[in-house]
């Protein structure tokens, strides 16, 4: 006696359900994407103002950044030493107005270097102020 084999081994889900499945998948991924919060560092930078170039006050802390190096009041500092040294300088000042640290960066200073240094200044209690160079156009007659 011949046995009839069932050729329909795979049973497809009803086509009407695919829309609902896609809908639920989209909702799932949308919820996943919107739940992730951003984390970051707040930074208070004094409002920009144009000032004439003046003689640098001797008691202002200045930090210069190049592509890889840091200079504290003109002296080169290793990244490891920078934190303790800026903290020592800021701790010696009680007046909040004296805790302003002027940060001047070379044009090729990368953001990861910049944020690492300015974070250390803020963690030490300093107020970061940016010194930007003004672009000047000179017309030659």
């Amino acid at each position: 006696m011949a046995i009839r084999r069932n050729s329909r081994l795979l049973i497809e889900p009803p086509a009407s359900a695919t829309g609902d499945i896609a809908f639920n998948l989209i909702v799932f991924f949308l919820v996943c994407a919107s739940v992730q919060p951003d984390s970051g560092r707040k930074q208070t930078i004094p409002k920009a103002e144009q000032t004439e170039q003046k003689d640098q006050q001797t008691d202002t802390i200045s930090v210069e950044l190049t592509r890889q190096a840091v200079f504290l009041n003109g002296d080169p500092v290793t990244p490891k030493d920078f934190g303790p040294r800026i903290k020592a300088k800021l701790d010696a000042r009680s007046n909040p107005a004296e805790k302003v640290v002027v940060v001047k960066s070379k044009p090729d200073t990368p953001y990861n270097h910049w944020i690492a240094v300015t974070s250390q200044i803020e963690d030490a209690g300093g107020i970061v102020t940016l010194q930007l160079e003004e672009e000047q156009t000179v017309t030659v007659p």
Partner: protein
Amino acid sequence: MAMGDIAFNLLIFFVILARAQDDSHLQWTPAKAENLEQAGHSMVSVVVDTENKLYLNGQEIGVGQLASAIEDQLGDAPPGERTVLLKVHQEAVALRFEPVIEAVSEAGGDLVHIVEDVKKASKK
């Protein structure tokens, strides 16, 4: 059947609409820092991507128009609700990102640098 399709198409429409305002399609790698806090809700997001292009809420913009555009977005929001999220690619240079910071400051925004926690980054 038709109801499901209508809902599906409406959803796709709104997702695409929302993406125009969103910056999740932009490519940038966050820098690493310590002592981070939650950035919270913000109406304004500024991105400097891997190609050094500048975006405000997902739309490309020039640095010259940035301050006024941020001011428009923030409107009369009170202090504490004027958060501006700044997402700068870690290799972007000062020549590019410092004028952006200056523009946020000029517009009276509360600047939050979006960065990655050093501890989390070292675990990866």
